[in-house]
């Protein structure tokens, strides 16, 4: 949720001004620049900006602090970040007293600026959302970002309110895209852990060793790349909640480690010898049938019972289609704002397409579909044509081993088919075919294959 917000960069030095502006634009913000305090104030008279980056030292006319004070007169709640060199840190402290949100000493670590900017934007987003929510109808149907009038979802929300204050482990089960993380967040933010961290980990996205160090952290020197000690997500979630998504995919070693944390609330960092103790509520989620995985011996039963203290099964979107109009309304509102579009409505016909579709990817797929439609929509109304990309997937085709091809022809066909099946993913294609990537690239060139 970025593009709507505009940022102003004020500096007399061209390279400094333009390179910072370019860097922020890459992050998706709309950025304007001004070469002097005077120019910046003129612009601010016409419109407010979400953030002003202002260089402290500017020759002639307004310096950084004077510029900030003028802008603050126009927009008292403007967020101003004063940029300073080492030599002028004292003055920067004065800047803070005069109402700067923050000052940064250049050159600054990119991570610091990213975090500073996203913190300010997050607050602005919240303020804006609260304003919208206050006047919105959907609030009758919404609880902590979950919008529904479906009876089963409403029951789940009652349960969420009831158990939010407990430390008991929760297992959320639902197809991908059903909003498992939203339920986890609702649990966290409705309980007394709300003021502590909510930490999310997607267990499927990482390899076993990466996931292990992600969860438990590591000590300096414990493996290649461990150049400093790093806290794991369990430590970061201390006092709060950790959300372990796609728990069904973790290796048996990690299942054992996790069981130990759940039993003892203690663990070791990777390469560490000292036990770390934490107070964390664990919420796990999976799109698999874990009970079945237990029966098949793929998932430890003791861990399953530890996780499954409170069980929340989330219905797929096709079983709560009455929510589609509400959800779509919410998505249009948010996405149109992000894209800076004056889009307000969806046609009856388009809505009918959405109601009749099966949504194998659930709410997330619906959200993506609306986003895709909004991007291509040129009028204030979303119509059927904006959703023409929605079609049910075709049946997989049978194939017999051909007996009339030369080896070269067969090789060409196999490479082409594998590329297509893996949607052009070169790395996976090479793996499946058992050749390295440069060999694959050579063959693609040789056979003049097209990119899927």
């Amino acid at each position, binding site marked *: 949720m970025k593009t709507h917000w505009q940022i102003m960069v004020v500096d007399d030095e061209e390279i400094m001004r333009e390179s910072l502006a370019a860097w922020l634009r890459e992050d998706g913000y709309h950025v304007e620049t001004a070469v002097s305090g005077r120019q910046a104030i003129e612009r601010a008279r016409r419109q407010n900006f979400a953030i002003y980056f202002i260089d402290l030292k500017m020759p002639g006319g307004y310096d950084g602090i004077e510029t900030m004070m003028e802008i603050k007169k126009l927009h008292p709640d403007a967020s101003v970040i004063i940029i300073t060199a080492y030599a002028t840190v004292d003055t920067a402290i004065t800047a803070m007293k005069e109402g700067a949100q923050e000052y940064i000493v250049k050159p600054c670590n990119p*991570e610091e600026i990213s975090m500073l900017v996203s913190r300010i934007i997050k607050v602005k987003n919240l303020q804006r959302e609260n304003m919208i929510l206050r006047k919105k109808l959907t609030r009758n149907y919404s609880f902590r970002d979950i919008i529904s009038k479906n009876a089963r979802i409403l029951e789940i929300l009652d349960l969420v309110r009831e158990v939010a204050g407990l430390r008991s482990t929760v297992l959320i089960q639902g197809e991908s895209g059903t909003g498992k993380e939203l339920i986890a967040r609702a649990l966290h933010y409705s309980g007394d852990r709300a003021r502590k961290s909510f930490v999310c980990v997607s267990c499927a996205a990482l390899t076993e060793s990466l996931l292990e160090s992600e969860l438990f952290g590591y000590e300096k020197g414990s493996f*290649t790349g461990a150049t400093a000690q790093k806290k794991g997500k369990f430590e970061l979630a201390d006092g709060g909640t950790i959300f372990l998504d796609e728990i069904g995919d973790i290796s048996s070693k990690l299942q054992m480690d996790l069981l130990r944390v759940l039993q003892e609330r203690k663990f070791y960092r990777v390469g560490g010898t000292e036990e770390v103790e934490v107070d964390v509520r664990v919420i796990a989620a999976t799109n698999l049938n874990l009970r079945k995985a237990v029966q098949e011996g793929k998932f430890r039963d003791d861990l399953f019972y530890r996780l499954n203290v409170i069980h929340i099964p989330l219905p797929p979107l096709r079983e709560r289609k009455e929510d589609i109009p509400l959800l779509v309304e919410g998505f249009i509102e948010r996405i149109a704002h992000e894209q800076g579009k004056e889009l307000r409505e969806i046609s009856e016909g388009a809505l009918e397409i959405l109601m009749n579709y099966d949504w194998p990817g659930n709410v997330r797929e619906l959200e993506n579909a609306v986003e895709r439609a909004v991007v291509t929509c040129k009028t204030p109304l979303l119509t059927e044509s904006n959703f023409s990309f929605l079609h049910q997937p075709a049946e997989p085709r049978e194939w017999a081993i051909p007996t009339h091809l030369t080896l070269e022809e067969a090789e060409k066909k196999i490479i082409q088919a594998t590329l297509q099946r893996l949607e052009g993913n070169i790395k996976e294609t090479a793996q499946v075919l058992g050749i390295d990537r440069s060999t694959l690239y050579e063959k693609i060139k040789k056979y003049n294959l097209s990119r899927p």
Partner: protein
Amino acid sequence: MKTIYLIPFGAADEEIFASVELSLWHSFGWEVRRLPALEEPGFAFEPQRRQYSSVLILRMLQSVFPADALRLLGVTEGDLFIPMLSFVFGQAQLNGGLALISLARLRQTFYGLAENNAVTAARAVKEATHEIGHTFGLTHCLDAGCPMSLSNTIWQVDRKREELCPKCAFLLQEMPAWKSQSRP
């Protein structure tokens, strides 16, 4: 036919360049070719910071932009900076023709570890895809596993996959800078 060109500063490391060329071709679909190497960009060296100005290098690349180039990606071993930041992994012109990446902080040796070319190549692929993505108008992605997500640390680079996420792959096709080019 329009081509994405790579241009090495100093001797090109074969494994790294081959990986980057293959991936760019895969992610973007245009032919990818390598230009003869230029000298290390001494003109952009800032002795006080012991780093290279990425703005000055980009300006210089503009002057060697080939007539049939769609995009030009410079690859340097020099550590890059812009005045505001302590370093950048790379820089690109949003919706423009030029991009630049540095291998300096992608190498294990920067972090006091033994050199591992395969690791550097994988990181270079992600950063090259990222910067070329910017030249087509893509901005940062919120999916931390997508090469278009912002990385400020090597840890964040390593968390990325090499392929664009489905959302960025789709958005790419909708970008005016992308649509204005006829597909190969």
